[in-house]
């Protein structure tokens, strides 16, 4: 049997086991609820009666009858300022003309007997809530999914070591087939989970009535995120397997996986805390570990040129090849050392299988 065929058999088992695993089912359900909440909440928050500013007394009375929250101001300039500051949803100016910052002020227009022209002041502006929550959500989803599934690769390796079945496995198939099967299985499951979250988020956004302008920037950001996630996950997967093999028991795992945990955790906090700093984000979007969060965020904010994600993906792909090699070597070097923890150096130098 070829390494490829063996890896497929290994991957099929991993997937079957995970699909029956409660942790996996719960995390999937949790993330789906989370992504629905993120897209639906802004619509809920912006609900309630629309507020409108107006200078003309007669118009104000008519709007009040339509149950709108009306603020009477001195002149049209004051009304427009309130709209620009986000204090009111819309304003009715002389003419009459209706202005709004970004959303069509449907209820205001309906309240007026004539159908006045509507002017949207900033059609491309992003809802401040979305501008805040989207990068955070991307970071959060990447961090937790990558961490959870990575840790599961490590746990699955440690389990095989601890139960000693590993010796039978190694005697049956090439070590690389075992490694490839695990990485492929967990990578696929993580990818499916993230893709599912992406699709649900976009559908949720449509249902919640986000307007086209927002979807127009959200879609490419999420699309790129899924691609970055896949490469980003595979990049670390072999390292997770490697640390899983270094540990002899599940209790050792937390300690030996520290470096890999850092590689997932630090970029998460970096992007969260440096999100406002353009230069920092530019750098983070090319560092392979933080790129899966930073680059889609820049795309969402409209800061990234068209070629930039391709370059960042290429940098990540190269890093992934190197780290897969390192992870595989550590994995093979420590898999059969069942007496206690193995050090990185020992695993690197080790020559166990022929």
């Amino acid at each position, binding site marked *: 049997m070829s390494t490829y065929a063996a890896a497929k058999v290994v991957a099929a088992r991993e997937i079957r086991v995970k699909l029956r695993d409660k942790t996996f089912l719960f995390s999937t359900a949790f993330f789906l609820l989370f992504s629905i909440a993120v897209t639906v909440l802004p619509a809920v928050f912006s609900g309630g009666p629309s507020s409108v500013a107006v200078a003309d007394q007669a118009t104000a009375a008519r709007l009040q009858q339509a149950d709108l929250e009306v603020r009477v101001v001195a002149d049209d300039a004051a009304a427009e300022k309130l709209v620009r500051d986000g204090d009111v949803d819309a304003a009715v100016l002389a003419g009459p003309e209706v202005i709004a910052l970004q959303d069509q002020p449907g209820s205001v227009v309906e309240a007026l007997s004539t159908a006045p022209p509507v002017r949207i002041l900033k059609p491309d502006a992003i809802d401040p809530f979305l501008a805040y929550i989207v990068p955070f959500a991307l970071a959060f989803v990447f961090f937790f999914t990558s961490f959870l599934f990575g840790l599961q690769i490590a746990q699955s390796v440690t389990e095989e070591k601890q139960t000693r*079945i590993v010796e*039978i496995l190694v005697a*049956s198939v090439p070590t690389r087939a075992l490694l490839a099967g695990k990485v492929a299985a967990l990578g696929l499951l993580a990818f499916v989970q993230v893709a599912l979250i992406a699709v649900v988020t976009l559908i949720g956004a449509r249902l919640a009535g986000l307007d086209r302008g927002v979807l127009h920037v959200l879609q490419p950001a999420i699309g790129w995120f899924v691609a970055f996630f896949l490469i980003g996950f595979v990049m670390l997967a072999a390292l997770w397997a490697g640390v899983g093999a270094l540990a002899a028991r599940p209790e050792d795992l937390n300690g030996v996986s520290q470096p890999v945990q850092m590689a997932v955790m630090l970029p998460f906090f970096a992007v969260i805390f440096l999100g406002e700093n353009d230069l920092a984000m530019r750098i983070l979007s090319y560092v392979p570990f933080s790129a899966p969060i930073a680059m889609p965020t820049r795309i969402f904010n409209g800061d990234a040129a068209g070629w930039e994600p391709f370059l960042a993906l290429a940098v990540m792909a190269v890093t992934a090849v190197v780290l897969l090699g390192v992870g595989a070597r550590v994995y093979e070097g420590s898999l059969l050392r069942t007496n206690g923890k193995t050090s990185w150096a020992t695993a690197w130098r080790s020559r166990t299988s*022929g």
Partner: protein
Amino acid sequence: MLNVDSVSRSFGDRTVLKDVSFPVGSGKLTGFVGANGAGKTTTMRIILGVLAADSGEVTLDGKPLTREIRQRFGYMPEERGLYPKMTVQDQVVYLGRLHGLSNAAAAERTTKLLDRLGLGERAGEKLEKLSLGNQQRAQVAAALVHDPEVLVLDEPFSGLDPIAVETTAEVLRDRAAAGVPVLFSSHQLDLVERLCDDLVIIADGSIRAAGDRDALRSRHAQPRYHLVVDTDAGWLRDQPGVTLLDLDGRRAVFDLDAGFDDQKVLHAALERGPVRAFGPVVPSLTEIFREVVR
């Protein structure tokens, strides 16, 4: 025939195997005997390719072992293990598939084998729910599921109850009868003695004796006899050439000096009355082992 040829291996500056050579004949049960740390497990791991040899090689029918050839081996490692949370059926099928069986073939073989090993009714249960003895049987099934062309078993009988020992021994004999070379190690020397066709004795990393069990025994046999008569056998003391080792009324064990005929002693006994038993004393494996390893 599986042939281990001049295999040496050391870990750091500790030499574990020194120029180890022995054959495992096709169709034969070969017992691999040695004290703890003598090198049995290392030898078996090298045969399976789990460990590399520093020098020497292992061949099957003259061909050096490759991964493809080894994939048709069955192996039971010293340190047992299967997936605790998987059902017996699922994991035996899985291991069958890793050895290249199709899903259908693996399932069919698994069902047959588990029935044969008396585990048929437990097939759908998780391994961790089974008693230790039954987990051992599952382990035997895991080693046999793909109809291996060579079987290497490290302590297959440890932890088995007497019934499971018999079932397992029967399965191994079956495989041997089908022409498969079977090598197994055990500390239960009486069991090895009863089951094996051939023996390999290892001590401190080198082979001390290897070959046919009976030939080995007769090679180590002393000119020693036992006799059972109806009356007291004390007269043996005065029989020329006889050194009495043990006398218990009607039973006696004695050595005969070179140049004396055992049949003369038998005649002398018959002159004195009925003889219930007379014959050479063959050394037990335990005795040979002690002598060879010393």
